[in-house]
């Protein structure tokens, strides 16, 4: 019987034996990450929800294929990202990044920023990220939002590790070029003064 805070690999073994409670725990644990990752890729709340539902159904059905020594988080995200990209291609969703504001606005959530400077910085970064090509945005989302390692991203996106590294590098270089030099300087200043505000 599955218990709270049970490690992933134990829950996976239980799932493989058909334990629905263990699966529920995995869903509770990973659905928020999966949903937000999908939302950042497809820029659409309802489509992201469909993506996550389908991905978890696939995961449940394919749990036998999962190897306990791999990362469950990366495996689940691989399915989510593949589904999200399929949906994006099929539904001809815009390739430019929109923002969480649209999803939040659709859900009636307020958007609050600490200060005008923070809002401006946030807006500038959003704009710069939105101008990146799709493959660069994918790798940025997985690296800095899902916080996956390079080998994990390589597995999720089906790329070689060298490709992941070079795309990350180029994405960051492009961001540096797109952001004003003053913005970069202020980030360094902020960093020296004790890090980015949390």
């Amino acid at each position, binding site marked *: 019987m599955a218990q709270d805070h049970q490690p992933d690999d134990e829950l996976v073994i239980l799932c493989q034996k058909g334990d629905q409670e263990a699966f529920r725990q995995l869903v509770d644990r990973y659905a928020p990450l999966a949903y937000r990752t999908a939302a950042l890729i497809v820029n659409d709340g309802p489509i992201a*929800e469909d993506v996550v539902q389908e991905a978890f159904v696939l995961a449940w059905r394919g749990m036998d294929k999962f190897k306990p020594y791999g990362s469950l988080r990366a495996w689940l995200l691989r399915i989510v990202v593949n589904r999200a990209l399929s949906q994006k291609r099929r539904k001809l969703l815009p390739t430019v990044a929109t923002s969480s504001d649209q*999803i939040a606005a659709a859900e009636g959530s307020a958007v609050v920023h600490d200060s005008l400077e923070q809002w401006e910085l946030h807006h500038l970064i959003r704009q710069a990220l939105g101008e990146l090509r799709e493959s660069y945005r994918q790798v940025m989302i997985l690296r800095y939002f899902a916080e996956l390692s390079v080998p994990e991203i390589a597995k999720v996106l089906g790329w070689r590790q060298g490709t992941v590294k070079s795309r990350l590098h180029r994405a960051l270089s492009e961001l540096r070029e797109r952001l004003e030099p003053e913005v970069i300087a202020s980030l360094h200043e902020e960093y020296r003064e004790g890090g980015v505000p949390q």
Partner: protein
Amino acid sequence: MSQSEKLSPLEERIRLYYQEEASRIPMPQGLSQRIVGKATSPSAEKPTRRRGFRLFARGAIAAAATAALLVAALVVWANVDLGASTVSAEEIMQRVEQNYQEGDPAGDIPVFGNAPSAQGPVEVPLPSYGVDVTELVPNMRELYRVNVTGEETLDGHDCYVLLATPLGKDELPEGLEPSPPADQIELWVDKETNLVHRVLLYFSTPEELEAHFANMGPPAEPAPLPIDLPPEPLPAPEEMRQPEPPPLPAPPPPGFTITPELTYAGLLGDLSAVHEVTVVREETVDNRIHYVLSLVLKPLPELEGVEPPPPPEGAEPSPPPPIEMEVWVDAESSLVTEMQFTAPDAGGGGIILDSGPGQ
């Protein structure tokens, strides 16, 4: 990403940006329950014997189709001179991908689409759009089977010619569905520089071709009409194509009703009626991004080609008031979904169009 991993200030800021963005995306109520319910419902159970049989049958059909393709490929191969090509398609694709990653030469190259018709293939030049090789090649490697079909000299460049055909559903990585950009892709790759000199996209129907290029354009940033929105962004329904759209009707009086025909063919189809157009903002309506255009129409007498009525006795002659309106255009499909008259003379009313043209 481990806690001890040292991030640059920019990376740290991006991480924070995504945290902020994600925190604003609320989790849909009851999503976890719905997922568990859907996954464990009897209809979504793990493969049963019957489903197993269906899978087996599907596999058998796929195997038969693959065998037929192999035979066809052998027949083609026998007629194509491959003697000079010792490089595998995968190797060429890797070189192209690497080349475009490192040097990123010429992101966009001209692309042509072939729309087969009853009379035979028709090459449709689409010079206003391009294809981004850095996106196309990884897409091809993921969703297509690529073969070297030969070698050709194109504009003095010795090229490999690659032909890509979409993978079947069973051959795709887990979770991916077959939704390739085109039915077939043909690529001319420079043997020396690994640059792509030509791309041919094959579509089985003209509609697919049109949908594909509708997806590629228009540019991300909205620009004023009439430059950016093509006169007919989506194929209009038959009844609107034949006969030709009627001439522009006069702007409606107070209490008017707007029909989709008037909206599309009458207003946006004939831009001679529009005196001034500006994109004033973007709005999300029904979860879709819209450009809100402010339109100033020519005054009514000018539109009808008649002299303005004489002013009342004793009054100063004044120019007739322009008609102003706001129009909501779906950024993706370019369909007009809502119009609102802002000038009081025009009634100040608005109308939401249930279905635009082409739907």
